[in-house]
């Protein structure tokens, strides 16, 4: 699907992470190409979320390099990394519960609202226009995930599946080039899953890169262009869904653990 010379969006090279004596990641390397959906799978506790935490700057790697569009992310604060064009969702949903849906999404647009203190105080036309545009864009994003009719509802009152969708829309609001999704369909029913699958496909077709962690094999295999498999902190396989499916190490890692 992607030409081989297409530049890699994200490149992770020889990354290691340990907490005290606990080695969570060792010598992890892979590349996420632009314009594709990339999957990261692996048993519980394999270190998948830790990879996301390293990319987004919540943790600092103990070894190795992480580059985004040819520039290192290491040492950048999380908000700077978001600014570079990476957004994420969380495995254990972290929406702003006391805000309504529209506000949640508008928080994501923070970086793109360029009015200053005086603009705010004087309610300048530029400020008003920017806010109006942001609101419209937020509604549009909410409609992408089918939540626009609940825009002024308190986020806390959403169902579990809707909260995931909201987080998804909020991440898109930062206008990322790469979207990191940590188990986006966990806790959703099959029909919700199918809808979200379509949505993620649409997102990719709109030009975003998507990098997701997911346990649901059918979902991952059906959606991803490439997949990396993490087991006990090491990459044991990498390739297209078919290559990964037939890899003996992967089969062993998964069969050894019973069906996930």
């Amino acid at each position, binding site marked *: 699907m992607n030409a081989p010379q297409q530049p890699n969006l994200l490149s992770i090279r020889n990354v290691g992470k340990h907490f005290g004596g606990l080695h969570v990641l060792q010598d992890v390397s892979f590349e996420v190409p632009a314009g594709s959906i990339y999957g990261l799978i692996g048993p519980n506790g394999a270190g998948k979320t830790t990879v996301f935490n390293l990319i*987004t700057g*919540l943790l600092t790697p103990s070894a190795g390099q992480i580059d985004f569009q040819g520039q290192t992310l290491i040492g950048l*604060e*999380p*908000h700077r990394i*978001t*600014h570079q064009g990476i*957004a*994420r969702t*969380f495995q254990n949903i*972290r*929406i*702003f*519960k*006391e*805000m309504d849906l529209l*506000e949640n999404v*508008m*928080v*994501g*647009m*923070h*970086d793109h*609202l360029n*009015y200053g*203190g005086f603009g*705010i*105080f004087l*309610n300048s036309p530029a*400020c008003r226009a920017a*806010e109006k545009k942001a609101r419209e864009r937020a509604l549009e994003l909410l409609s992408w995930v089918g939540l626009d009719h609940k825009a002024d509802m*308190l986020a806390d009152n959403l169902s579990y599946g809707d909260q995931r969708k909201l987080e998804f829309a*909020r991440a898109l*609001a*930062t206008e990322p080039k790469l979207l990191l999704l940590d188990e986006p369909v966990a806790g959703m029913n099959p029909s919700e899953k199918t809808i979200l699958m379509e949505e993620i496909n649409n997102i990719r077709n709109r030009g975003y890169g998507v990098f997701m962690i997911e346990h649901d094999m059918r979902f991952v295999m059906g959606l991803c262009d490439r997949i990396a498999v993490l087991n006990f902190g090491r990459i044991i396989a990498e390739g297209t869904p078919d290559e990964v499916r037939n890899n003996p190490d992967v089969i062993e890692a998964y069969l050894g653990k019973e069906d996930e």
Partner: protein
Amino acid sequence: MEWFNDFWSTYSTLVFSVGVHALLALSIWLTLSCGLLSLANAAFMGVGAYVSALLTLHLEWSFGSVLLAGGIAPTLVALIIGAPVLRLSGVYLAMATLAFGEVVRITVLNLEITGGPEGLNGIPLATEGWHIALILAVTVYGLARLRRSKVGRAFEAIKEDEVAARLMGINVDRYKLLAFSLGAFIAGVAGALNAHFTFFISPREYGFENAVDILTMAVLGGTSSLIGPMLGSSILTLLPELLRSLQDFRSLVNGAVLVLVVLFLPKGLWESRRIRAFFKRLKGGQA
């Protein structure tokens, strides 16, 4: 008009206090809206009060510039201590700001120029009713604008989930510093206004108890909107007047209010969402 003059001569100080306390409650509302429990606002008020009073007494600056200086001085202090202090969170921040407040109080107590424990006497009565009204109005307007902007949303996001806020591209440290120092500015101006209608200031007015009083006003009124802190400060300023007969037990009421509100009204008296829902229901009922 006669009755008004009578009323004013008896109660002007009380009305002034309501205004100043409203400013203080708004100042702590601002830091709370960013998720910071800072107990430094009484100390910031003190810095504003002393700096402005000293400028009036010794350098005879005009009242306007004195007010401005009263706001700027604690803001500078907040900017200096903010960077290290705001790295702390939750109770650690509360403890550090409490300690800072005590350091300020003890310093003022020991300095020559601040008059030590006796404080400063004979500060000209420059504050007039419209000064307070105007400053309060501008503050409320400014904060209301802030709340509806990206800054207000950033504060709220930081309050709810700092990590998520960071990942939305918000420079959390900078916004915390903004809330902290803007709060200091408002508290400092309130202190300057206060100093210029009470004639006299002393370190006793800027200690831990006062920090707690300010906090109580905001918590009682509720911090979900700007109305809460103003409501809370009005009640807690007027209540002791109505309870004069209780004498020594007066602050018992303050303490009890704090406990009862925390227990039974977690969102304070004025919870904007509940009240909006109430009016919506009223309207719905009519239609």
